[in-house]
């Protein structure tokens, strides 16, 4: 990873140019300029992505891997070029390690149901952290039920960092897999995944990293972190909805049985016996979201042009400013104080419930999320029902953070 403190955030002109790339940022909401601070839920899309998806349907549309005709060849090339872009983005060794899915959730389910069904035995342990999103909990519960494996939970400390030494106590010869979020969607905590992976590998366990929040916020390098599984969603990375990626180390993917059956994932089919296609196609049954994948490539190239280290620096500056500003309000409490935090800050204000806060902020054009953020176990651990959450992207500004703080005055006017 680059030395983050040396990377400069954007100048005002750069930021203005970036904002101009995103048509939705020009929207008026409730008669005001939209301040979109819900990027952890999904990001807005640059024009390059929107146009690539439209251009695909206008001039390139055909099914992939199935035809000898001209358009099918074009579509297949574009689809496979996008896979190569993802490979480079993740610094994976091989294209065979890149599986396209419909999103991070499906990526995790694929691992749980394919790898999990084959390798988990009764009494085996799956370790999850207290910070996980439901989509990195429920698939493991489902497969635990089917296989007799057991879930163990890695607790957090009062700052919402993973408990120091917590993993030492959990890891044993029974631990088969550790499933951990890279960046927590509820608190912004950046987990030390490289050390975690090394420790788990030394104990003989595999590691799945949920990269849904990390992919748009920090540079990724599969070989550097030595990941077994890494899952992400395109729509949180300025790309279209309905596209996800699952990275799996080739030696692991080779041993995994198919997840779904259908077209494209087979080599030969007869009623007696089916032989399966090569990696990664064995895991891509049916017609994929071809246009989405093709447009996703534009999103990756977009963030690569800017540089994820710079995006990280920009979001860090905004997040630090937001945390400081929120903590300066005597009736506001920010949730967690993680050592390393990326792009996300959740908070509570004494006089009002998170939903009411979000409705009032919406009335001045500030879009934030309220609720449990698919983090019910985390909320329970913190003893709260929900939070209001602001989450930043490449295009957010200090002024937007100031509007959020200003909006809290209106919340007080109504509820105090």
């Amino acid at each position, binding site marked *: 990873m680059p030395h983050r403190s040396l990377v400069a955030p954007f100048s005002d002109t750069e930021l203005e140019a970036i904002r101009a790339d995103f048509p939705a940022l020009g929207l008026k909401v409730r008669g005001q300029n939209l301040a979109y601070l819900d990027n952890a839920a999904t990001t807005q899309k640059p024009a390059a992505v929107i146009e690539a998806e439209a251009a695909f349907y206008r001039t390139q549309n055909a099914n992939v891997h199935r035809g000898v005709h001209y358009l099918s060849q074009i579509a297949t090339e574009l689809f496979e070029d996008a896979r190569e872009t993802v490979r480079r983005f993740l610094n994976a060794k091989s294209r065979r390690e890149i599986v396209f899915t419909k999103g991070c959730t499906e990526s995790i389910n694929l691992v749980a149901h394919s790898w999990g069904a084959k390798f988990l035995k009764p009494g085996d342990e799956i370790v999850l952290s207290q910070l996980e999103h439901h989509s990195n909990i429920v698939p493991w519960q489902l497969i635990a039920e089917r296989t007799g494996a057991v879930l163990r939970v890695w607790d957090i400390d009062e700052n919402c960092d993973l408990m120091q030494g917590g993993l030492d106590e959990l890891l044993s010869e029974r631990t088969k897999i550790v499933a951990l979020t890279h960046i927590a969607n509820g608190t912004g905590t950046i987990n030390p995944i490289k050390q975690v992976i090394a420790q788990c590998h030394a104990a003989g366990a595999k590691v799945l990293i949920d990269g849904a929040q990390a992919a748009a916020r920090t540079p990724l390098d599969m070989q550097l972190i030595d990941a077994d599984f890494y899952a992400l969603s395109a729509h949180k990375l300025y790309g279209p909805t309905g596209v996800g990626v699952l990275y799996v180390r080739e030696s692991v993917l080779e041993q995994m049985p198919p997840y779904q059956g259908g077209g494209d994932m087979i080599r030969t089919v007869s009623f007696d016996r089916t032989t399966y296609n090569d990696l990664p196609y064995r895991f891509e049954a049916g017609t994929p979201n071809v246009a989405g994948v093709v447009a996703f490539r534009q999103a990756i190239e977009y963030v690569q042009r800017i540089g994820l280290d710079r995006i990280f620096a920009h979001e860090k500056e905004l997040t630090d400013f937001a945390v400081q500003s929120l903590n300066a309000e005597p009736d506001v409490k920010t949730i967690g104080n993680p050592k390393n935090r990326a792009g996300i800050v959740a908070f509570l204000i004494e006089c009002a419930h998170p939903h009411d806060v979000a*409705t009032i902020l919406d009335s001045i054009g500030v879009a934030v999320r309220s609720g449990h953020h698919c983090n019910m176990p985390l*909320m329970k651990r913190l003893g709260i029902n929900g939070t209001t959450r602001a989450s930043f992207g490449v295009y957010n500004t200090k002024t937007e953070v100031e509007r959020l703080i200003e909006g809290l005055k209106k919340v007080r006017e109504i509820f105090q």
Partner: protein
Amino acid sequence: MTFEGELSDLYQQVILDHSKHPRNAGSLDSANRRAVGHNPLCGDQIVLMLEVKDGVIADVKFQSSGCAISVASASLMSEAIKGKTVQEAELMFRKFHEMLTGACDTSSLGKLSALSGTREFPMRVKCATLAWHTLEAALNNPNQTVTTESDA
């Protein structure tokens, strides 16, 4: 109406007052009907306790945690149904539901019509109906948990 207008319609004085000072909050030892309502999308929760005697809701108490709309709705409901027959309460629920889902005459709803402003905030309608769904459950399937996500 301007959005400012819609917002102050949503958060009317009556609603703010009931959310800050809910009436009939607490627990009811004499309760013979009880139901728990839950909105899994936002974590709002209500425990509703009723004492039903000879077809009349003789007493009502509730415990709730949630947003201003859901607490105020529970409080207003508790006032409205106390002393009413079960049939009257059910009719009220139907009227209330109509008020939030379409245009309807709110004159018969009295104070409950203060919640008509949620109509303009589709994401918040469930906050207003949670207490009422819980009432339905308490009257028809006592000791059940209802969630806002099971109704169509």
